[in-house]
């Protein structure tokens, strides 16, 4: 076994740009990525109040083609892709036969014979192998991550900034829909999706155009408050918005029911990987469930800290952080079902202390529409 530290990290097309612009870099999922530019708090609040630009080209893409493409999507994911119309995307889960998560993903329907999946960077190769293993339908599969850069423009000003670069009317693109068109003269897939809890767009395009799009968007967006953002702010934004992160809230030991993601699981769509296991768990009842927590003193809960109730450990924090917009310290954790109600007092084990917290509703933050 080679330890991850000795493996050369992978780089997006903007790697040198990030370094030249002074971003702080970290290894994330085997990728050398910007974690922050001007600071997580400033970047986070820019996205809530104006706009932020993220290089998320580390995300993986997998494309399924042919008459059997839908059958394969339906077999390996838990949401119902047959409900999609061309130009529509859905959040879904890539399932094990036990009904746990291989990954979470976005399924984009480009046409009846072409589905475009966006998956987590660190899971891409595993996801692709998993999909191929279950491709008994003869669908054409392709691992196309290296063919795309992905930029996310997020925040209330995202639409007006991006609109200046494209003849495609952005307003009619509804949330979780996408279209194709030129952005600054570059062919793009333009999707109204994101991972921040704000309005925004994610644009997919050939990597050689990355530098031009990155610089031109930043330059033009400056007057509207657009700033470059790193994965640090991306994480605090998604946590405030109550969105799951693979390896934290969900993994191959957790199910959609436990993770409060029942809305992406359509057991009535027909058989799929994990279908029976998920029905069984639903019938037998859950033992634990994901809840939101708010710290009630100044202490900060962090990933993997133990959760206590009446002196007994009852779970673990999956993600915990200061929430820069809410100015609170928040967390998500798995707890026994009977402790799920908002208001329930719990304690977080932080360095030999038990810091008080209480269960709160998720999402912590919801934008005004």
């Amino acid at each position: 076994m080679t330890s991850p530290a000795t493996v050369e990290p992978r780089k997006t097309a903007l790697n040198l740009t990030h370094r030249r612009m002074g971003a702080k870099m970290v290894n994330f999922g085997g990728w050398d990525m910007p974690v922050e530019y001007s600071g997580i708090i400033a970047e986070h609040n820019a996205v809530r109040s104006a706009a932020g630009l993220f290089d998320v080209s580390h995300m993986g893409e997998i494309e399924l083609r042919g008459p059997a493409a839908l059958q394969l999507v339906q077999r390996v994911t838990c949401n119902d892709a047959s409900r999609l119309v061309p130009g529509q995307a859905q959040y879904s889960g890539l399932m094990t036969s036990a009904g746990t998560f291989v990954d979470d993903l976005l399924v984009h329907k480009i046409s009846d014979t072409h589905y475009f999946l966006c998956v987590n960077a660190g899971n891409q190769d595993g996801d692709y192998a998993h999909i191929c293993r279950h491709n008994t339908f003869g669908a054409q599969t392709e691992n196309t991550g290296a063919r795309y850069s992905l930029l996310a423009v997020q925040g209330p000003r995202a639409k007006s900034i991006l609109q200046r670069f494209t003849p495609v009317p952005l307003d009619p693109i509804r949330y979780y829909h996408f279209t194709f068109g030129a952005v600054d003269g570059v062919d793009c897939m333009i999707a109204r999706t994101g991972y921040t809890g704000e309005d925004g767009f994610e644009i997919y395009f050939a990597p050689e155009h990355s530098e031009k799009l990155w610089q031109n968007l930043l330059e033009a967006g400056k007057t509207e408050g657009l700033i470059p953002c790193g994965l640090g702010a991306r994480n605090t934004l998604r946590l405030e918005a109550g969105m799951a992160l693979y390896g934290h809230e969900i993994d191959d030991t957790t199910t959609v029911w436990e993770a409060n993601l029942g809305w992406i699981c359509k057991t009535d769509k027909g058989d799929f990987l994990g279908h029976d296991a998920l029905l069984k768990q639903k019938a037998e009842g859950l033992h634990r469930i994901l809840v939101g927590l708010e710290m009630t003193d100044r202490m900060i809960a962090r990933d993997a800290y133990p959760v206590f109730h009446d002196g007994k450990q009852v779970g673990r924090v999956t993600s915990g952080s200061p929430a820069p917009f809410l100015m609170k310290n928040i967390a998500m954790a798995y707890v026994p079902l009977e402790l799920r109600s908002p208001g329930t007092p719990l304690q977080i084990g932080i360095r030999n202390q038990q810091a008080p917290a209480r269960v709160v509703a998720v999402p912590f933050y919801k934008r005004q529409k």
Partner: protein
Amino acid sequence: MYPSDYRYTKDHEWIKLEGATATVGITHYAQEALGDVVFVELPKVGAKFDAGAAFGTVESVKAVSEVYCPVSAEVVEVNSALATAPETINKDPHGAAWMIKVRPSNAKEIEGLMDAAAYQAFIAEKEKESHA
């Protein structure tokens, strides 16, 4: 940037000796690596620490970092202003954001720490590693 009358540790604390007491904080390099500091936990006056023992915790939005006592010492004063204004650590790490004042039990230990030139060479080497 790095005051010449301070001494520095490999864990990025600074210490400044004035008579029988010394002041301790974290360096500019440390605050920059941490990012926005949002929480500081400091010991009580009277607490004793061996050289290299953790005396407190600094948390940024993304990271938790322990702070180590550069020399064996007893705490005589704590900068309680940091509890409500932890961001001072980002703004003035070598001045207003001092963390504790201590009475070293063996002042000679300070001589074993890096001076400003040695510390700057040390962090320059670290920078090179991270960009390799």
